[in-house]
C-alpha cells in the first residue's frame, strides 16, 4: 500500500513539473508584458530596464529554475497587472470558482441521474423524447452562446435573475467568501451553474440511460421481477444501484474539468473566480498569475486522479488480494 502511494506521488510530481515546463515554454509566445505595463511615453531604454529587472531577459532555464525554486516555497511572485501577491489573489478568487463548480456539479449529477432514469424507463414517451432532444441541443451549442442566451431570456426579457457578478457575499472564516448565504448570491449562482453544468448533465444523463437499459435487460432484473418485487424496488434498488458505479467515477473525474473549464462561463457572467482572473491575465501577459493558475489546475487534476486511484485500491478487493498473494 505504502509503495503504491509513494509511486503515485512521484508520478504526480513529474506531472506537475511537466506542466510547469510546458506552460513556461508557452509563455514566450504570449507576447511582451512590458507593452501593457507602461504608458506610451516610456522610452525604449526604460522598457529595457524594466524587462531586465523582471528577469525577462534571462535564458529560459534560469527563468524556469527561479520560478520553480520560489514556487516550492509557495511564492508565485506579484501580479504585473493588479500588483497583489499572486497566491493571495488566487486564494481570494478560488472560493467563487469552487462554489460554482460544486453547485453545477451537484446539479449536473442530480438532474443527469433523474433524467437518465426517466428516459430509460419511459422510452418512446414524448417527454423523454423532448428531454433527449433538448439535451442534444444543449451539448452541441458552445458554452458562450448558452450563457448569452440564458442572460437574454432570464435577465433582460424576464428580469428574474441577475446577468452578471456574484451578488452579495459574506465571509466564512478569514478568507472564504460565500454567495450561498445571501438571496442575491444564490440568485446569481443559478444561470452560471446551469451554463457550466449543462454539458456534464447531458453526459451523465446519457450514461445513466445507456447503463440502465443495459442493466434492465440482465437476468437478475428478470429474477427480481419474478420474485414479485415492486417496480420501484426493481428500478431503484437493483437497476439504478448497479449503474451508479461508473457514473460516480465519471462525475468525480469531471469535477476537475468543471473547475478547469469554468473559464468561459466565468467570463460570460463576470463571475469573479480564478477562470476570469486567468483570462484577464492572458490578455495582459501577466506571467506570474498565468503560471500559478496552470500549476493550480494541474494540482487539481493530479489530486483527483490520486484520490480516484486510492479509492479503486480500497474498493476493488481483487487488487488487494493480488498484491497480498504476490508478496507471500
Amino acid at each position, binding site marked *: 500500500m505504502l509503495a503504491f502511494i509513494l509511486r503515485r506521488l512521484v508520478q504526480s510530481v513529474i506531472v506537475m513539473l511537466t506542466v510547469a515546463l510546458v506552460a513556461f515554454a508557452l509563455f514566450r509566445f504570449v507576447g511582451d508584458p512590458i507593452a501593457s*505595463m507602461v504608458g506610451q511615453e516610456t522610452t525604449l531604454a526604460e522598457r529595457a530596464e524594466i524587462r531586465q529587472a523582471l528577469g525577462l531577459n534571462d535564458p529560459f532555464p534560469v527563468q524556469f529554475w527561479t520560478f520553480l525554486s520560489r514556487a516550492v516555497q509557495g511564492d508565485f511572485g506579484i501580479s504585473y497587472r493588479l500588483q*497583489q501577491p499572486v497566491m493571495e489573489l488566487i486564494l481570494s478568487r478560488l472560493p467563487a470558482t469552487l462554489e460554482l463548480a460544486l453547485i453545477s456539479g451537484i446539479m449536473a449529477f442530480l438532474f443527469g441521474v433523474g433524467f437518465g432514469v426517466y428516459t430509460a424507463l419511459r422510452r418512446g414517451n414524448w417527454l423523454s423524447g423532448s428531454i433527449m432532444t433538448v439535451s442534444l441541443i444543449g451539448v452541441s451549442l458552445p458554452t458562450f452562446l448558452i450563457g448569452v442566451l440564458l442572460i437574454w431570456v432570464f435577465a433582460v426579457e424576464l*428580469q428574474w435573475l441577475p*446577468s452578471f457578478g456574484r451578488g452579495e457575499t459574506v465571509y466564512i472564516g478569514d478568507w472564504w467568501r460565500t454567495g450561498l448565504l445571501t438571496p442575491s448570491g444564490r440568485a446569481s449562482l443559478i444561470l452560471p451553474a446551469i451554463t457550466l453544468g449543462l454539458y456534464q448533465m447531458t453526459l451523465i444523463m446519457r450514461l445513466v440511460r445507456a447503463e440502465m437499459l443495459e442493466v434492465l435487460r440482465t437476468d437478475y432484473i428478470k429474477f427480481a421481477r419474478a420474485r414479485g418485487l415492486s417496480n420501484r424496488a426493481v428500478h431503484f434498488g437493483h437497476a439504478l444501484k448497479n449503474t451508479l458505479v461508473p457514473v460516480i467515477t465519471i462525475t468525480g473525474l469531471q469535477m476537475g474539468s468543471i473547475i478547469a473549464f469554468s473559464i468561459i462561463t466565468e467570463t460570460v457572467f463576470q463571475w469573479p473566480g480564478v477562470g476570469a482572473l486567468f483570462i*484577464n491575465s492572458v490578455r495582459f501577459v501577466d506571467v506570474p498569475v498565468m503560471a500559478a493558475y496552470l500549476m493550480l489546475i494541474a494540482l487539481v487534476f493530479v489530486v483527483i486522479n490520486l484520490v480516484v486511484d486510492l479509492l479503486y485500491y480500497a474498493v476493488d478487493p481483487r487488487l488487494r488480494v493480488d498484491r497480498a498473494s504476490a508478496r507471500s
Partner: protein
Amino acid sequence: MNMLLTKARSGLLMGVAASALVLTSVAAHSETIRWARVGDALTLDPHSQNEGPTHTLNHHIYETLVGRDIDGSLTARLATEWEISEEDDSVWIFRIREGVTFHDGTPMTAEDVVFSLDRARTPPSGMAALHAAVEDVTAEDDHTVHVRMSGPAPLYVQNLTNTFIMSKAWAEENGVEVAPDFAAGEEAYSVRNTNGTGPYRLVERDPEVRTVLERFDDHWDDTPEVTEIIYTPISEAATRVAALLSGEVDIVQDVPVQDIARLEQTDGVIVSRGPENRNIFFSYDMTSDSLASSDAEGNPFATPEVREAMSLAIDRNAIRQVVMRGESQPSAAPLPPFVNGWTEEMDAFSDPDLDRARGLMEEAGYGDGFTVQLDCPNDRYLNDEAICQALVGMMAQIGITVDLNSQTRSLHFPLIENWETDFYLLGWGVPTFDSQYVFDFLVHTREGSYGSFNGSRYSNPELDEKIQALATMTELEERDALIAEIWEEVMEEHIFLNVHNQVLAYAMRDGINLDVHPENQPHMTTITFD
C-alpha cells in the same frame, strides 16, 4: 435702469428655479450611479500606472493641479493659477488652492504638491516620462509651488492632467513614499487604500469585482448630484449591454460599435457620442533596403509614388460605413480635431482614384504589384482587425497583395518597438493636446526619448531639429507656424496612411446626462438628472 431691473428679475427667477431644482434633486436624485466598463483600474495608487481606466477611476478619488474639460481645454483644479515665471522662463509657478482637505481631514498644502510631483517623477512611477524635463520642485510658501525645468517648457502644464496629488503625511505613515515596484514582490498599501482630495471617498475596493465610492462632503467644489458610485467591470460585451438593458447598471462606458444603433432604438436607454482623442492609421518601413515579408525588388514603401498610390486606393468612407457602421471621423492626418496644430484641411482627403493609383504604381516600377505582410492588433482599437481586412481588399485593387497577420496587442506592439514589421496599424492619442507629442513619438528619428513609436524608421535631420525646437519655444505664434511647417512636410512624405479618428459612445439609462470626454475619462460629478 431697465437693464438692471431685468437682471434683478431674472436673478429672482433663477433663484426660484434653482430652489425648485434642489427640491426635485433631493426628492428623486439622492442618486447612486452604477457604472460598468470593460476593465477595472489596475491600481488605486495615484502614480504607479499611466493607463486610461486607472486614471479615470482615480480622478474621482484624487485630484490633479489642472483638469481637462470636455472641449479639451485646461481647467483649474488644485491649482488656481499657473504661469511661466517672468524672471526665468524655465520655471513654472503654480498657485495652490486654499481650503482643500484630504479625505482624512488634514489640510492640503504646497508640501503635499511638492511631494506628489517628486513621487510621480521618480521611477518606478509610471508617470515619470511625463516629468522627465523637471529638475526640481520647491514650495515657496504654503500655497505656491515652483517647478524648475531643464529649459523653457511652455507645454509642461499640459502633462499634469493625470498627475494626482496625495498626502505626504499619509504616504509616509503607510510606507508608500515611492510608487509601487513590480519587482518588489509585495503589495503596497496604496494599491487598495486611498487618501485623496477628490469629490468621492473610497468605501469598498474589491479589484475586478466592485468598487464603491461615496460623496466627500467636505470637498471644495460644487456638490455633485451623484451621491454614490458603484463601479463594476464587465469584460464581456454582450453581458455589459445586457446588464444595462436589464437595469442592473446605469451607465455602460465601452459600448460595442455594432450595438450603438440598436441601443439608441431601445426604450429607456440613451446613447451619448463624441470624438475620442485617438487616431487610427497605417504606417510602413520607409527606409530599409528591402522588406522581410515582401517578394518585391528593393523596398516599395521607400518610393514616394507607392505611398501616394496607397493613399489614393484607401476608401476611408467605405471603412466608416461598412466597418465602423458610421461611428468614426475619417481624416487624412493622424491628429484629432481638438489638438493644437490641427487644421480643417487635415480632415480633407480625395476620393479613391484607382486609375491614378495604378499609374503611380506603374511609374514606380511596381506595375505588377508586390506582396507584403500587414501586422494588425485584434484587441486594442475599435474593430481594428476588421479595418485591416478592409484594407487588404483595397490594396489588392492596385496590385498589392497583403498578407494579414492579426494578433493580440502584447504580440503586436513589440513588432513596432523592435522594428520587426514592414507594414502595421497603430492608434495614437495626444494627451498633451499638442502636435509636438505626435512628432516626438512618431516622426522624430528614433534616439533617446524620441521616436519610440516611429515604426516607419523615417529619419530627417532637418525635421528633427525643428521638432526639438518646438519643445522650448515660448512664442506661441511662431511655434504654431513651425508646427504647420512640420505637418506640411509630414503629409507630403505620406509617412502615415491615415484612416480615422475614433468616436466614443456611452450608453445610459434615460434621464441621465453625461457627455463624452475626449480622453474617455467621464467624470461622475458632471452627471445631471432630468
